[in-house]
C-alpha cells in the first residue's frame, strides 16, 4: 500500500480487484446513465484496470449492486440501453423526527437573522432536501417558511437595491388605491410582526415609509441617477422612567439627550410621524411626549378617540 502511494502502481494481490471495479462502476452509474460500451471504454482507459469486461460480467455487477440496495434504471437513450443508479444505500435520509427538529431550529434562527441570511438558510435546506428521496423536508419547509407566499426573486432583487440604496419604480398593489407605480429610494428590508417590509423614502409624499413586500408586484425600473429628496424630519422628545428604559430597545434614530437618577429624555429624529406615533402609543403610560406641541396634541387627540371608541356603542 505504501508503494502504491509512492508509485501509483497497484499490486493486484494486495487489493480486491473485483471490489475495486464494482465501486468504480457504482461511481460511473451515479454520475449519469452509461451504456455497457461506455463502461468498457472507461475500464479500458483506466490506469489501473486497462481491460474490458464481458457483457455477462457487467450484468453480474449490475445484479450485485441491486442486491446491496441500489435501484438501477435501464433506459433507451438514442437507441442505446443505458444504466443509471437512481437510489443507493448511502443516500442521505432524514426521519420525520429529525425533520421536525430541523424545522424547530429553523424557526429559532429565523427570528434573529437578517433577510439575506434567511434566504441562504432556506436555499441550504432546499438543497439538502434535493438529496433526499422523499420530499418531506421540502414540504415541511414550505409549510413553516417565514417567506411562505413571497416572491423570492423580488426579495433577492430588493436586497441588492437596498445594498446600493437604489432608486426604483415598483408596481404596488395598494389596499386603498389599488395597483399603482411607486417611486422609492430604497433603504432596507426588515421583518416586523412576521411581515416583510421594504423601508425607504417614497417620492409621492416625500416621506420615509414602509411597504409590504407581499404587495410589490414587480420592479419596473431602476433609476440610473438617484435624486435624493429633501425629507422633512421632526425632532420628537419623550420622557421615560429609567426602569422602563431597560425594557425597550432604542432605534438608530433615537438618542438619550438627558439622563437623571430616575428618568431619561429620549429624542427621535422622525421622518415618518405615523410610525413614530404607533411606537410611542405601544409604550402606553411608560412615556410622556414632551415636544413638539403639535405632535403631542395629535397624540392626545388619538388617545381620546381610542377612549371614545369604547363608549360609542
Amino acid at each position, binding site marked *: 500500500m505504501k508503494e502504491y502511494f509512492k508509485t501509483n502502481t497497484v499490486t493486484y494481490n494486495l487489493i480486491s480487484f473485483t471490489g475495486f471495479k464494482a465501486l468504480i462502476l457504482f461511481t460511473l452509474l451515479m454520475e449519469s446513465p452509461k451504456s455497457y460500451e461506455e463502461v468498457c471504454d472507461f475500464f479500458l482507459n483506466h490506469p489501473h484496470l486497462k481491460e474490458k469486461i464481458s457483457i455477462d460480467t457487467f450484468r453480474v455487477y449490475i445484479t450485485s449492486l441491486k442486491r446491496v440496495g441500489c435501484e438501477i434504471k435501464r433506459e433507451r437513450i438514442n437507441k442505446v440501453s443505458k444504466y443509471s443508479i437512481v437510489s443507493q444505500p448511502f443516500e442521505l435520509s432524514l426521519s420525520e423526527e429529525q425533520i421536525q427538529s430541523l424545522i*424547530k431550529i429553523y424557526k429559532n434562527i429565523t427570528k*434573529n437573522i437578517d433577510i439575506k*441570511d434567511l434566504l441562504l438558510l432556506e*436555499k*441550504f435546506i432546499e438543497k439538502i432536501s434535493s438529496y433526499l428521496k422523499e420530499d418531506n423536508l421540502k414540504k415541511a419547509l414550505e409549510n413553516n417558511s417565514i417567506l411562505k407566499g413571497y416572491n423570492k426573486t423580488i426579495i433577492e432583487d430588493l436586497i441588492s437595491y437596498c445594498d446600493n440604496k437604489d432608486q426604483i419604480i415598483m408596481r404596488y398593489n395598494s389596499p386603498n388605491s389599488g395597483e399603482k407605480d411607486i417611486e422609492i429610494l430604497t433603504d432596507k428590508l426588515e421583518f416586523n410582526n412576521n411581515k416583510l417590509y421594504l423601508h425607504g423614502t417614497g417620492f409621492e409624499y416625500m416621506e420615509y415609509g414602509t411597504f409590504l413586500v407581499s404587495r410589490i408586484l414587480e420592479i419596473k425600473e431602476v433609476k440610473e441617477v438617484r435624486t435624493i429628496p429633501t425629507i422633512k424630519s421632526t425632532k420628537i422628545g419623550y420622557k421615560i422612567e429609567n426602569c422602563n428604559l431597560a425594557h425597550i430597545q432604542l432605534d438608530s434614530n433615537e438618542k438619550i439627550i438627558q439622563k437623571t437618577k430616575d428618568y431619561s429624555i429620549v429624542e427621535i429624529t422622525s421622518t415618518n410621524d405615523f410610525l413614530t406615533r404607533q411606537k410611542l402609543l*405601544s*409604550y402606553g403610560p411608560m412615556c410622556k411626549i414632551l415636544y413638539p406641541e403639535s405632535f403631542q396634541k395629535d397624540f*392626545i387627540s388619538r388617545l381620546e378617540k381610542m377612549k371614545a371608541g*369604547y363608549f360609542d356603542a
Partner: protein
Amino acid sequence: MPRLSSKYNDSCIKMFEFLKLLTQGPVDFKDVIEIFSDEKTAGKSNPHVTLNKYLNTLKILGLKIKKKQNKYYLLNFPYKISLDTNDIKSLSLIKQASELLPKGKTKKNIDSIIKSIEIRLSESTQAIEKTMSTTENIDYSFIHDEIKDQIKRCEHFCQEHQKLEILYTTIKGEQETIKCSPIEIKYEKRKVCLTVNVQSQSKIVDIPLEQILKIKQLPNATTQQIVSTTIVYKLKNRLAKNYKLRAWERSDGLDSNGNLIVINKNEDQDQLLARLMRYGEECTIESPKFFKEKMLELINQTLENYKN
C-alpha cells in the same frame, strides 16, 4: 419486487456490506471480520488478509477509514454532497443554534443531521469549509452568549413537564412570583423569552430570560392542556383590510361594515395590549370585559401623563 438473477459477485457484495456497516457509525472489529469470514473458504483464506485487501481497495478509491481502539470509523463517503460557501455558512449557523439546545431529542437529531451531512461532503466542499472563516459575514447575534446557559436550563424545564415557580421583574419594574407550566423558549427579535401558562389566571406570559430572578421546579407535573383566555378585538378601516392574522389568531373575515373581528388565544396579554395600543383608534377590544377594562385603564393612565 422483481426477482434478481442468482448470479452475483461475492466480492462486490462484501465490499458494499462493509461500506454500509461503516456508514452506520463506528463498527467493532469483530463485526467487520465477520463479513470476511466466509464459511465456504474457511481454512483457505485468512479473513484478516481479506479485510486488509478491502481496506486497501477503499483507500485507493479515496475512502478514508480510521481504526481506533478496535473500532473502524468511516471518514468520508462514497456518495458526495456538494455545497457552496453560502451553504457552509448556513450549516455553521445551524451548528451554532444547536449548541444552545439542552441534551435531548432535538439536539441529538440536529447533531446527527449535521454529522450525516458533513461526512458526505465532497472534497471541494471540505476544502471550502477549511479555508473559509465560518463566522465571516454572518450575524450570530441571536446566539445570546451571555444567556446561553439560561436558555439551556429553560429548554430543559420545558422538556421536564414539571410546574415552575418563577420570580421575575415585570415591565413596570416590580418583582412578581408566578406558579406556571413552561411551554417553550420563544426567540424574538433581539430577545429570548420563556413562554409559560399561568393556569390560575388563564393566561400566557412571555418572560424575557434577562428578567428572570429565580426559578424553582415544583413536584407537580404540568397539564398538557393550555388554559388561556380568548380575547376578541375589532379592527377598522384600512387596518381591517391589511391585517395579517398571527398563527394563534382566527377570523371569519370582514363583516358588512368592513370591520375585521379577530379571535386571539395564547398571546401574552401585556404584549397584546401594547400591540393593540399601537393600532390607535382603528382597534377596539370586544371581549372579555376585564381585558376591555384593562385597555381603557391603559389609555386613561397614558392620558393622565398630559393633565395639568
